[in-house]
């Protein structure tokens, strides 16, 4: 049996960075306050002391520069892991993400490839204002050429981050900050990969498939447990990577149940719930017994704290939504 440590999600991220930096000199971290300070969320704590300022680089406050420099390093064969302090601060570098990070490979007709991983804490639930709370995974999933990974457990955080860093293609790695320290989990000390693009079934059930990811996995599981007491069994699928989507897992879970709900904290319109629903329509229409229920944030900028519990899908909202789909027609 391998040795494990009991880590929070953010500690597992740090452990993943440490593991890959130890194994591969080409892995470097860069961003604001990531060096001496160890990152505002402590995701890079101790890395500066271990690997030095040449590999854990404190940058000027300029996201376009940070992400663009990572693009250049990656094109030269390094494996940079730039950090943005919050996902809401990625936008000054958005041009580098969509114009370069995602397209260098296609544009150069595969002659350049970008093994880089752009990390950022994302999502709501900490009572902070909009750009500290929003979920914009759909922006990045919409951009061909990017993989978008969102772990929901410490185990996955380390394993998926290692996969992302080793991946020859660029990955946007979004870390649900609400659950950075919400709970601990067993994380192997050794290195291991959790493959990108593979969903995982968190709970088995025959009545309805519920698809979710990131911080929403918790209220979804909570709802599933309480629905089970009423005799409704949910199959909860944590997609883990929203691009590429594990369409096989989606179709399989749906064919098993004939009903589905999607839970995400991002706004509903144009959110990934729509993509999942469309996948079901295209691939499994004849199994469908009810409209797919989307339980999501609303089409508004993320509101401040008194309205946050209203905005974010709660276990109660998931329960109600699931019942609607299960009781249809």
């Amino acid at each position, binding site marked *: 049996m391998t040795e494990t440590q009991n880590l929070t999600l953010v500690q597992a991220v740090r452990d993943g960075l440490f593991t890959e930096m130890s194994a591969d000199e080409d892995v470097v971290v860069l961003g*604001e*306050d990531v060096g*001496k*300070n160890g990152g*505002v969320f402590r995701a890079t704590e101790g890395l500066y002391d271990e690997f030095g300022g040449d590999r854990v680089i*404190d*940058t*000027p*406050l*300029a996201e*376009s*520069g940070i992400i663009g420099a990572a693009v250049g390093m990656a094109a030269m064969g390094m494996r940079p892991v730039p950090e943005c302090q919050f996902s*809401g*601060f990625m*936008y*000054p570098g958005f041009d580098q993400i969509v114009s370069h990070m995602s397209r260098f490979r296609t544009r150069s007709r595969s002659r350049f490839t970008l093994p880089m991983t752009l990390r950022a804490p994302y999502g709501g*639930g*900490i*009572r*902070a*204002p*909009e*750009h*500290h709370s929003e979920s914009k995974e759909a922006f990045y999933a919409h951009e061909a050429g990017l993989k978008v990974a969102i772990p929901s457990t410490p185990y996955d955080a380390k394993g998926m981050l290692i996969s992302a860093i080793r991946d020859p293609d660029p990955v946007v790695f979004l870390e649900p900050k609400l659950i950075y320290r919400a709970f601990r989990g067993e994380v192997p000390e050794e290195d291991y990969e959790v493959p990108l693009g593979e969903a995982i079934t968190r709970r088995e059930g025959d009545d309805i498939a519920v698809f979710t990811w990131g911080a929403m996995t918790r209220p979804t599981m909570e709802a599933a447990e309480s629905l089970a007491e009423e005799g409704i069994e949910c199959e909860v699928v944590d997609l883990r990577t929203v691009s590429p989507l594990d369409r096989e897992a989606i179709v399989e879970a749906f064919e098993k149940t004939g009903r589905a709900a999607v839970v995400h904290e991002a*706004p*509903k*319109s144009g959110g990934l719930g729509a993509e999942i629903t469309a996948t079901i329509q295209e691939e499994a229409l004849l199994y469908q017994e009810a409209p797919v229920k989307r339980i*999501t944030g*609303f*089409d*508004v*900028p993320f*509101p*401040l*704290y*008194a*309205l946050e*519990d*209203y*905005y974010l899908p*709660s276990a*109660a*909202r998931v329960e*109600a939504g699931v019942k609607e789909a299960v009781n249809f027609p």
Partner: protein
Amino acid sequence: MVALTKLRELYADMVTARRYEERLQEEYLEGKQPAFDISAGPIPGELHLAAGQEAAAVGVCHHLRPSDTVTAPHRPHHVAIAKGVDLKRMTAEIFGRETGLGKGKGGHMHLFDPDVNFACSGIIAQGCPPAAGAALAAKKRNEDAVAVAFLGEGAIDQGGFLESLNFASVHDLPVVFVVEDNDWAISMPKERVTDVEDGSKRADGFDMPGVRVDVDDAVAVYEAAGEAVGRARDRNGPTLLEVQVHRRMGHFMGDPQTYRSDADEEAALARDSIERLERELRDRGVDDAELNEVREDAETRVEEAISWAKEQPHPEPGAAHEDVFVNPPSGVTDSEPDFELAGVSGDE
């Protein structure tokens, strides 16, 4: 020499701003200790306070009129106070209450007040392009309004700032960019992110006047800003003004500041622009009784704003759906709000 009445006004605003931050710090920390919990207490979320930076805001804004535009960054309270933003409604916003400037949906980095043309951006340096735009609007309409963008010294490496300098220069815009140099950008001292110690030198490359006020002194700022704002008002183009200030507190409340030496913190505390101005006022014949009176007035104003704010209701859940469009889309929308289901009444 700056008139004594003006010095008194500067002093009153500075002590108000200082007192305000000290009281917000107390309110903010309530319930968040011992293990720092950002989501607890009467002011959840993060809070960037500006104690030690009053001289910049007050020295500049005392040249401004309500019709002049100011954009402030993530650390906006002292600027808002100096610009004359309604203190009660601003405080209600910080406490997330319905009667706040932004209906309690924006928080302390998102203070907007069209009554005095005040706006914020939590995204560093991104208030600069809109300030240039406000200046362009004034110029196009032949009004004598000016615009001022505030930002930190860490933010001057952002494209948005440098783009704005060039835009303002080539179009001779009536705008002033004010860099508050508090030596730190969260954990990063200036020398780790730039080789140019004097940020006002950024102006040289855009053929724009660049001025640095090296001492944390409201009067010196007032004088330098007088020229800069006057230049803008007289349609003689933009200025970049950098002001040395000091960060007396953490970057955000709850910041353990492990990256900062005690000596640095003590030095920042020792160079207090309020004490400096007090000395000057005394030298010019103002007695302690009068200074006390100003301080007491400031305290009363701050206390009134805070207690008023805390009595205000939280926003109702439905407010989350408001204010997105002038003409909201009709027909099937994203949600049929079910407030009961959400398990929240605004006042929870």
